[in-house]
């Protein structure tokens, strides 16, 4: 081919487009700075910012699975909230069994109890995700209206099952001793649990990025989001990948359920469907199927909800919806739209 070879060249992305691509990353610090200007008091701002980041991280944990499931499988799962609620109930049950550990002043025992609760919640919701995908989702691949109906049905069934197993009343549980109280930075008091939530959310985001960018399964997921048919033509069984992703997404929702439950210290069978409004907003803001977009969207929602709750409590009720409207007017496909094959 050497004689007829053409000179290799690459199409350069214009500078303006490069800046526009990076712009969503600057939204989070931008909103934080606006918050500082509006609040005025640095101590209050720091407390609210950490609270907002913690809330955002917990929403990200719940939303990350949903966005990947949508991107890869083109499945609108309105039943995702069921995994949040079941995860919280399983986690609380484990924490109740380990009441001696959670009441102990030992940080290690507290940590072990929470980790076991998270593990149990993730295993149970992962298995539930397996059953959900096989029984409810698999028959309706490619049919969005049916997906909405049957996954909503699955959510209702799961909520009723929670009533059967744990009863209709809400459950209360105190956080382990090590996660109670606050850490004082200057004049700002920051709840310890919020710092833990930020750390876990950040670790999860970095782990997901690593898996998606540096492992073959991650490459397959990214390729599958763009063109599942071509992934199959290369010899990979995408249905198996679907199942793994669905189970992982369900397990992450379970983890989010435990985290959210410990944050609120109260859980109900409807907690999943209640938080799903925020989760869907985050997924839409981020761009359906985009983990990075979901992460930024979750932080934006968390920060804005906390700032507006402090500055104008009545506006807080509509702040997240308003954020979604503004983002979609700017980027109709979300912050990081995922390219899909026709």
């Amino acid at each position, binding site marked *: 081919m050497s004689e007829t070879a053409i000179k290799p060249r*690459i199409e350069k992305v214009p500078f303006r487009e490069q800046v526009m691509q990076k712009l969503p990353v600057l939204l989070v610090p931008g909103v934080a700075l606006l918050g500082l200007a509006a609040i005025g008091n640095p101590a209050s701002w720091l407390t609210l910012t950490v609270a907002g980041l913690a809330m955002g991280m917990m929403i990200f944990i719940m939303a990350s699975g949903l966005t990947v499931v949508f991107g890869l499988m083109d499945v609108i799962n309105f039943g995702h909230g069921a995994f949040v609620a079941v995860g919280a109930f399983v986690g609380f049950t484990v924490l109740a069994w380990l009441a001696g550990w959670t009441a102990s002043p030992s940080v290690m025992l507290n940590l072990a109890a929470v980790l076991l609760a998270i593990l149990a919640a993730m295993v149970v919701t992962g298995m539930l995700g397996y059953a959900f995908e096989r029984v409810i989702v698999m028959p309706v691949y490619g049919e969005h209206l049916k997906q909405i109906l049957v996954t909503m049905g699955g959510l209702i069934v799961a909520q009723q099952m929670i009533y059967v197993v744990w009863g209709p009343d809400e459950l209360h549980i105190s956080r382990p001793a090590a996660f109670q109280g606050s850490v004082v930075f200057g004049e700002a008091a920051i709840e310890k649990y919020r710092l833990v939530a930020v750390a876990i959310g950040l670790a999860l985001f970095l782990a997901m990025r690593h898996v998606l960018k540096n492992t073959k399964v991650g490459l397959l997921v990214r390729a599958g989001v763009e063109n599942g*048919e*071509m992934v199959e033509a290369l010899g990979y069984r995408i249905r198996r990948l679907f199942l793994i992703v669905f189970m992982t997404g369900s397990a992450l929702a379970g983890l989010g359920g435990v985290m959210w439950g410990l944050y609120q210290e109260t859980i109900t069978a409807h907690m999943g469907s209640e938080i799903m409004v925020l989760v869907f907003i985050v997924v839409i803001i981020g761009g359906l199927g985009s983990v990075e977009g979901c992460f930024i969207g979750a932080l934006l929602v968390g920060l804005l909800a906390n700032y507006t709750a402090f500055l104008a409590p009545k506006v807080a009720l509509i702040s997240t919806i308003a954020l979604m409207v503004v983002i979609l007017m700017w980027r109709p496909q979300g912050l990081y739209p995922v390219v899909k094959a026709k």
Partner: protein
Amino acid sequence: MVDILLSLSGVHTLIGPYHILQGVDLAVPEGGVTVLLGRNGAGKTTTLRTIMGLWTASQGDIRLADHLITQLDTPEISRRGVAYVPEDMGIFTDLTVAENMLLAASSGPIDQQRLAWIKDLFPPIGTFWEASAGTLSGGQKQMLSVARAIIEPRRLILIDEPTKGLAPAIINAMTEALRELKQTDTTILLVEQNFAMASAIGDTVAVMDDGRIIHSGQMSELVEDEGLQERLMGLSLEAHQ
């Protein structure tokens, strides 16, 4: 006598309410290039997609080296050594060139010797190895699409209009590359509208119309017989050179 690697007999394919393939009979000899010609909408792409299992034949048999593959799913057909280069190239634009190639080597690590050969065949693959595939030009994407199909030895490569929308210089480069690929005794079933390219590398030819094969034979016979060309395709060789 030439061995037949792929054979289709009486294949029908329905896509929704549309009856696209209406009894396709096709034999692809081993080790050569068979070109599938026909006007737009004749059923060429549907034939490739049906062979690949992306659409299921409602009737008829598809055999690969005498093994029935009609009801096999796409990953299984791929594992039996069939590669597919779709009309839209099927490049994963969010991945780098290297990642595209890595995924294409589905049975294990990339054979470095083979990769070196491919980089020689398609220089942009080496030049833009770490670049995002989405930033490549149309011709480079097409080269990546073909390179991905040959990163592992295949029994059969299905290529759907590799020159569509490309500049003449790139078409020449692609023709040269396919000619070199032909030297490796790889069997290729090529859908192509560019008759100059098709005649340059094709050994055998089949012409489709209305979901059926209306002619099959040696490419040299079709090239020499302009009357046959006019009758089959309503075009002359000169007009498309």
